[in-house]
């Protein structure tokens, strides 16, 4: 089967600093403080996006923040964003209702190497909200399923109530062509699945480390532990990809707000190959 065309990474915006207006079509609660918004443009169509990219979302009168795209790249007409309310802008975003306006700029940044991974095993390691930026990659991996070897989703979060996209995870669990392991850090008696940290799932998944691409997203400490465990299992640093977060302003490589060493997260990331950021990750604070 012919590979689908690579998505266009840069949006054809006239002025990349000028947000266009979108409207909230639907809002769903996924977990405590976590909401998924479906946004449609007030006019015109939306540019395509690659899994792992993000948009700058504005709540007018409050502020603008980077939020990953969490929907299906094959359905670019619907913008899906999953937001955790942690501060002023994300809380305002999570409170938007059907019909409310949202400012949109993007999509920006690099994506997960879904095309490059064709032919190899793929291990997706997600922690907490880190599943949101990985979901578009999972949609793409599972769509032309024959193009990959084994696929494993290893997802860890805090407690059963914090599990994102639970119904979708159940559907993936029922498929024979993806191995799904979910673990929580703590649970009470009625939780039937695994308890323990996400790194403990790596030894349970079946994959050939010599021909595996690993996609890792979650809190930075969790990613450091997960990457260490993947390397211990034999996956090379050049085969591990991770998504980094830093505060952003322009999102187009101009202001330097998101700089980490020589890299600008907004332009050179957020998805990086591990060997290219390993040294910067080891630094205490940048």
């Amino acid at each position, binding site marked *: 089967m012919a590979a689908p065309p690579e998505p266009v990474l840069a949006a054809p915006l006239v002025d990349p600093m000028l947000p266009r207006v979108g409207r909230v079509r639907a809002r769903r609660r996924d977990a*405590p*403080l976590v909401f998924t918004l479906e946004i449609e443009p007030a006019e015109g169509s939306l540019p395509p996006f690659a899994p792992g990219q993000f948009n700058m979302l504005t709540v007018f009168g409050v502020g603008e923040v980077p939020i990953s795209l969490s929907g299906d790249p094959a359905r670019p007409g619907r913008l899906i964003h999953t937001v*955790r*309310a*942690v*501060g002023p802008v994300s809380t305002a975003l999570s409170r938007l209702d059907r019909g409310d306006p949202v400012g949109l700029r993007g999509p920006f940044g690099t994506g997960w190497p879904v095309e490059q991974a064709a032919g190899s095993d793929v291990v997706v390691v997600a*922690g*907490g*909200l880190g599943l949101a930026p990985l979901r578009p990659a999972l949609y793409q991996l599972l769509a032309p399923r024959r193009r990959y070897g084994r696929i494993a989703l290893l997802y*860890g*979060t*805090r407690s059963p109530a*914090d599990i994102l996209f639970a119904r979708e995870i159940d559907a993936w669990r029922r498929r024979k062509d993806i191995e799904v392991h979910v673990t929580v*850090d*703590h*649970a*009470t*008696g009625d*939780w*039937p*699945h*695994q*308890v*323990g*940290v996400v*790194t*403990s799932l790596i030894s*349970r998944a079946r994959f050939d480390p010599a021909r595996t691409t690993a996609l890792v997203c*979650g*809190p930075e*400490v*969790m990613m450091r*532990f997960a990457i260490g465990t993947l390397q211990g299992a034999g996956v090379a640093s050049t085969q591990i990809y991770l998504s980094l977060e830093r505060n952003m302003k322009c999102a187009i490589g101009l202001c330097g707000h998101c700089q980490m060493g020589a890299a600008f997260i907004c332009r050179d990331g957020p998805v990086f190959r591990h060997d290219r950021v390993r040294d910067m990750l080891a630094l205490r604070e940048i």
Partner: protein
Amino acid sequence: METHGLDRILREHPFFAGLEEDFCQLVCGCARNVRFDAGQHLFREGEPASEFFLIRQGRVALEIRAPGRGAITFQTVGEGEIVGVSWLIPPYRWTYDAKALEVVRAIGINATCLRDKSESDHDLGYELMKRFVPVLVQRLQATRLQILDVYGSPA
């Protein structure tokens, strides 16, 4: 006791993979086959750590009881893994409950027997340490991650 079958099962368990024949015989002399029904405890907090378990089948929840919160599972352990490390360190008492979540088949290893053999054969003791220390380090790292509560809300 039928040690021949146990010998094979022990060698096939990932925890003892590649164990030398002599050591295998020594460990086998302390081992027995055990089975627990769903809901049955392998051991409870505070009890003497007299036996640890190599899980062959089924899952075990490791739980801590907190006043007003009931039992909180902090880890589940399954096939190919071990339950119980407190038998290595004085005062040799369990510091949590271990409960079968489904039918569990395991090999139980008598801790006093193995401690005595390790005391008189330090090569065996060292071999065991090399196998237990990675498990302890893994659990320590896991505990660090859990304490950090990395997914916790910043609010």
